[in-house]
């Protein structure tokens, strides 16, 4: 059973047209992350929520916003997508506190965003 679900898997938008990507989890994890990944590169953390607390990475453009209305759902909003924002967007979760096992993150399958 899928534990971290991302919808849609593929999203096409136009230059400058706002787009929202969604992520849901069935793990009841307290932390949810959004990463941007470009071709064959490592995931780049955009921001994360620790419960309701939003934590933005210093180099994340203002064009990217996020919402977490409840434990299960988290959204990535791109207000005015540019051509450079075309990428795979990965959502991940973790349960902070299980340090003996390492801070494993569970990733969703990603949403591939195309900007025309």
């Amino acid at each position: 059973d899928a534990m971290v679900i991302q919808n849609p898997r593929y999203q096409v938008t136009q230059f400058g047209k706002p787009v929202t990507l969604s992520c849901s989890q069935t793990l009841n994890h307290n932390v949810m992350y959004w990463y941007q990944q470009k071709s064959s590169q490592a995931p780049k953390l955009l921001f994360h929520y620790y419960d309701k607390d939003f934590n933005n990475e210093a180099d994340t453009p203002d064009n990217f916003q996020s919402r977490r209305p409840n434990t299960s759902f988290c959204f990535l909003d791109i207000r005015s997508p540019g051509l450079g924002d075309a990428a795979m967007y990965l959502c991940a979760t973790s349960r902070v506190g299980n340090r003996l096992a390492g801070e494993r993150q569970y990733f969703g399958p990603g949403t591939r965003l195309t900007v025309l």
Partner: protein
Amino acid sequence: TQLLEQSPQFLSIQEGENLTVYCNSSSVFSSLQWYRQEPGEGPVLLVTVVTGGEVKKLKRLTFQFGDARKDSSLHITAAQPGDTGLYLCAGDGAGSYQLTFGKGTKLSVIP
């Protein structure tokens, strides 16, 4: 800022060959994880190493955590086409629950 240097960045080998991927840092990590990512999918955890000097085996994959917990290696024996993918190492530092990712190693195993 903690950095993880992963090498090589790209690796193309014939089926049946052995290979090693390295993940190095000047920082100490509480744990280090290896993920494999197939095209169009999210990364999937292969293993977590926690103790310095630890060695873990997963079928043909052998993972080692350095004694000082600053580096790790992944060795694949008799690589198969199904091993093709992007291999990512990631570490969590003391006092931080976030992961620092290496840049990844893109492995292609040619039949």
